[in-house]
């Protein structure tokens, strides 16, 4: 059973400047009297007292201003940061898509990058070899896959990353914003695959600024503000409070048509 539970978790970053990161200062500090070395290190409280419980089937949109802690929260949920205070428990295989450049080596070919990214996401080599053709077809990169990644444009990298992540079966899918760099035609194609992927994955947390994406993929939402969970509830409710207007009144007719029968949001009236 896939789930993420977080109890009163805080994430504090110690900010070591070049000097306080050295042993010398720590040693001298000890000699000079009782000045706690921790006390002199400035701390950034990125997340503060987060309590969440996400169960199998959750489709959560993550909204908030820049620097509100969305990316940090995603990393907390991925298990990359263990809370400095409080607890977290993550059950399930996590597939994060954060920074699209990381885990990709610019000097090696697209094919090899597909392999490495897949292995990092917990696949075996054999499984990835089976999927490579499918990914190649989906990304439409063709012969470019033989080229080193440094020759790729941003959009092509996004295609590659989306191709890999949508070809595997993650239990927990965490998507950060930044997958908007691809052209519209590819996005339409990716949307279908993402949708399919979301259906397969047990749990989705998706940080995005686009109403359309959120409405399409999510049914609940978390509004982050200054490291706190400001609001957690139905998507429509949270988006209305966050944006100051009801996004469902402004969605384009074609999105409405596309959602039509599939949207859990409209039928569910945006949660309770």
């Amino acid at each position: 059973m896939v789930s993420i539970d977080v109890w009163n978790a805080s994430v504090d970053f110690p900010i070591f400047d070049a000097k306080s990161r050295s042993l010398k200062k720590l040693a001298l500090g000890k000699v000079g009297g009782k000045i706690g070395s921790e006390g002199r290190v400035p701390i950034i409280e990125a997340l503060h007292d987060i309590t969440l419980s996400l169960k199998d089937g959750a489709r959560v949109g993550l909204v908030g201003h820049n620097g509100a802690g969305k990316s940090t929260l995603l990393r907390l949920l991925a298990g990359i940061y263990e809370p400095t205070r409080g607890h977290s428990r993550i059950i399930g295989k996590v597939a994060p898509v954060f920074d699209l450049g990381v885990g990709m080596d610019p000097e090696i070919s697209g094919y090899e990058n597909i392999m490495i990214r897949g292995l990092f996401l917990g696949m075996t080599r054999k499984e990835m070899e089976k999927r490579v053709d499918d990914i190649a077809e989906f990304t439409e990169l063709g012969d470019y896959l033989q080229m080193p990644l440094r020759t790729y444009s941003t959009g092509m990298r996004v295609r590659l990353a989306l191709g890999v992540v949508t070809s595997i079966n993650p239990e927990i899918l965490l998507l950060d914003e930044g997958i908007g760099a691809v052209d519209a035609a590819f996005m339409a194609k990716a949307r279908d695959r993402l949708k399919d992927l979301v259906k397969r994955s047990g749990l989705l947390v998706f940080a995005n600024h686009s109403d359309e994406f959120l409405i399409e993929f999510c049914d609940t939402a978390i509004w982050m503000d200054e490291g706190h969970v400001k609001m957690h509830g139905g998507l429509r409710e949270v988006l209305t409070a966050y944006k100051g207007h009801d996004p469902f009144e402004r969605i384009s007719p074609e999105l409405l048509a596309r959602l039509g029968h599939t949207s859990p949001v409209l039928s569910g009236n945006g949660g309770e």
Partner: protein
Amino acid sequence: MQATSTLDHPEAPPAVRSRSFKRAFADVREAWDHRELWGHLGWQDIKQRYRRSVIGPLWITISMGTTALALGLLYSVLFKTDVATFLPYVTVGFIVWNFIVGCVTEGTDVFIANEGLIKHLPAPITVHVMRMVWRQVLFFAHNLVVYLVVLAIFFTSLNHDYKISENGPVHPGLSWTIVLAIPGFVLLAVNAVWVSLLFGVISTRFRDIPPVVNSFINLVFFMTPIVWDAGVLQRVTGGGNNDWRMLIAELNPVYHFVEVVRAPLLGHAVDWHHWAIVGGFTVAGWFAALVILRNYRARVSYWV
């Protein structure tokens, strides 16, 4: 507004402590389960380094070959020893030393260099260490070609009892004991993992450690019997085992690590006290590394 999430929220966890030996062991175990990942990455690193060169990884072998040849010739002339026995000695010593120095210097840097991966993909931190050690093992394998060539050339000088330095001990020559090099090297690699776990975590927090290690490692090279023979010490001290000068080698842990791999490969007498010391370091080092892993494993992603 958190009603939807807190209503059915389970009570505080029974025992989800991030600082426990269980989690430390789990990190190492999961890293082992990921061996396909670091195995692939290690290969990739080597291919990567020589990507656009014509002869590729052969450069590793060639550079080792020339270094060993030059050092072996130079020091055999300086020490007035027989090239036929001294050149293989220097070659093997230098190959093993190269592995050790690679693991130690890259080990201090292992998490700092992998900052991007650590911050973006959830994986046991030991994975990065395993990738680095595996890469060094592959370098070692490339360098072993030099050993095989040297062995083929000087085989007739090594297959019977011989001396390296005049007053040094008599070595029995190559025999079945050569297979002891395999457990010897496995022990060396196992130790490389704890060394880079330990120093890697500490260096991530205190960025002075890598330069300190880098400046001391050269000193260690000259203190270790690699381009000079430990038998020289016996000549200097007149064979007295209690002379303090004997301790120059004996107190240097690197000497024992070099010896467990080098001695079998050259047909030197098996000296079990090296094995005992290496075994002791393995146990004590892994214990220290696990304590560090227990306490600071979760902090690495904050520190990088």
